[in-house]
C-alpha cells in the first residue's frame, strides 16, 4: 500500500478518499503522542509559507508543525506579502519559493490561487485557504476532531450552521463528510447563505444526502455535532435582513438547553459572537480541543507529503 500524499498537492479535501484520510489520522495519532519531543524527520527540508491574506492561527499552526518535525521555515507574510501583492505577481513569488523550499503552503484571497501555484511549482503545494473556496487542512482537523470525540465519523447526525455560501471552512468540512457515512446532515443557514449551486451540484454528483433546515431549533434535539461558522454582515445585500436574521444563528445556553447531553460544538475559529462565551464552560464546547489538533494533523500531513515516517 502506497502513500497517496507523497509529493502530492493538497488543493481540496475532495482530492482525497476515505482511506487516504484514515491514513492521515493514524499519522496524526502518532504525531500527538510525540508532541513533547522535537523530531528530526524533516531535518534539512525547507517549508515555505506564503500567506497573502492575514492569518494568525493557520500560519502559526503550520510553522509549529514544520518546526516540530525539524524542518526550516521561510515565510512571506504581513508587509512583505502586501508589497508582493502590489508589485510582483503571484506566479513569480511562487517560482522564488519553489527554488528555495521543498514544500509550499499558500493562503490567498483569490479562489484558484493554490491551484495555480501548484501548476507553477515543482514542489508540492498545500492550500491554506483560497478565497471563499477551499480550506482542506481545516477540514482534515475537523474530521479528526470528530473521530477523537466520538470514535467515529460515521452514523452521527450533523448540523452545519452559518455561512454555507462563502465560508470555506464549513464547506470544506461538508465536502469532507462526503468521504464518510454520516447519519444525517442538516444545512442550517439563512436562504441567501445557502451553498453555491456548484457545491450542491458536486454533492449530487457524489450521491450525498443532506437536508436544509430553516432554523437550528428545529434540529437541535437530534444532532450530535453542531458545526458553527460566522455569518458576516458584509455578505448580506440588505443590512436590515442581517439584523433580522443574525439572532437565529447564535449559539448560547438557551439554544443548547434542548440539546443531547453528548452534543459537541465545533468552530474553525476565530469566533466573534456566533458562540456566546457562556457556552465555553459547558461540556458541549469542543472548539478549543479541535483547535489543539491543528498542529498534530498538520505534522501528519507534512510528513506524509514529504514521505517521512513519524
Amino acid at each position, binding site marked *: 500500500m502506497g502513500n497517496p500524499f507523497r509529493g502530492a498537492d493538497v488543493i481540496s479535501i475532495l482530492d482525497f478518499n476515505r482511506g487516504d484520510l484514515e491514513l492521515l489520522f493514524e499519522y496524526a495519532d502518532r504525531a500527538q503522542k510525540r508532541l513533547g519531543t522535537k523530531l528530526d524527520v524533516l531535518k534539512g527540508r525547507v517549508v515555505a509559507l506564503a500567506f497573502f491574506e492575514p492569518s494568525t492561527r493557520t500560519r502559526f499552526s503550520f510553522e509549529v508543525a514544520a518546526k516540530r518535525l525539524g524542518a526550516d521555515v521561510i515565510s512571506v507574510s504581513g508587509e512583505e506579502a502586501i508589497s508582493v501583492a502590489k508589485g510582483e505577481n*503571484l*506566479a513569480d513569488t511562487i517560482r522564488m519559493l519553489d527554488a528555495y523550499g521543498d514544500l509550499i503552503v499558500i493562503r*490567498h484571497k483569490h*479562489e*484558484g490561487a493554490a*491551484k*495555480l501555484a501548484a501548476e*507553477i511549482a515543482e514542489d508540492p503545494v498545500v492550500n491554506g485557504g*483560497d478565497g471563499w473556496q477551499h480550506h482542506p487542512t481545516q477540514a482534515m482537523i475537523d474530521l479528526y476532531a470528530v473521530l477523537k470525540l466520538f470514535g467515529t465519523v460515521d452514523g452521527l447526525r450533523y448540523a452545519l450552521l452559518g455561512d454555507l455560501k462563502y465560508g470555506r471552512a464549513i464547506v470544506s468540512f461538508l465536502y469532507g463528510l462526503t468521504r464518510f457515512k454520516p447519519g444525517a446532515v442538516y444545512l442550517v443557514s439563512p436562504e441567501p447563505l445557502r451553498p453555491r449551486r*456548484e457545491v450542491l451540484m458536486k454533492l449530487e454528483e457524489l450521491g450525498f444526502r443532506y437536508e436544509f433546515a430553516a432554523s437550528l431549533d428545529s434540529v437541535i434535539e437530534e444532532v450530535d455535532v453542531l458545526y458553527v461558522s460566522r455569518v458576516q454582515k458584509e455578505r448580506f445585500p440588505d443590512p436590515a435582513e442581517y439584523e433580522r436574521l443574525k439572532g437565529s444563528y447564535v449559539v448560547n445556553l438557551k439554544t443548547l438547553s434542548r440539546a443531547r447531553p453528548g452534543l459537541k460544538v465545533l468552530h474553525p475559529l476565530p469566533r466573534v459572537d456566533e458562540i456566546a462565551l457562556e457556552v465555553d464552560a459547558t461540556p458541549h464546547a469542543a472548539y478549543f480541543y479541535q483547535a489543539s489538533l491543528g498542529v498534530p494533523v498538520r505534522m501528519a500531513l507534512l510528513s506524509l507529503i514529504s514521505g517521512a515516517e513519524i
Partner: protein
Amino acid sequence: MRSGTSTVARIRSGVVIDHIPAGRALEVLRALGITGKEGYRTVVLMNVESRKLGRKDVIKIEGRFLDPRESTLVALAAPTATINVIEDFEVRSKVRVSAPDVVEGLLKCPNPTCITNKEREPVKPRHRRVSSEPLEYRCEYCGTLIRLR
C-alpha cells in the same frame, strides 16, 4: 425571382452556419468577432422556419472559413449549429458542432475574484463541461458555473 432566402442564399465560397437556435445569430457573430467592418458579404437570417428546431437563425459568410477554435466558439454560442463549408456553390463538408469537454482560454469566469481574472498572472481560464442540456461549464480554478444556454 424565387421567393424567400434564395436571392441571398447562394454563396460561391465560404461558410454557412445553419441550425442556430432562433435569436442567437448575433451572439454567434459576436463570438466570432465579426462586426461587418471586415468587408465580408454576410447574410444573417433570423427566426426562419426550421423542420428540426421550429425556428432557427442562419448565417452565411462569403469568403470566410472557420478554424477549429472558431468552430468551438460557434458550439458554445449555438450548441445545435451545423457548419457547412461551401466551394463553387456546393457544400464541401457539413459538420454538426459539438461543445468540447474542456475549453481553454475561451470563456471568461464570471467570478470577479477568481484567479483567472487577476491581472498579470500567467493563467488561462479553463472550463470543464458539466452538462449538455442546458450547456453548462465549471471553472477549473474556482468552481463557478457558467450556463451558456
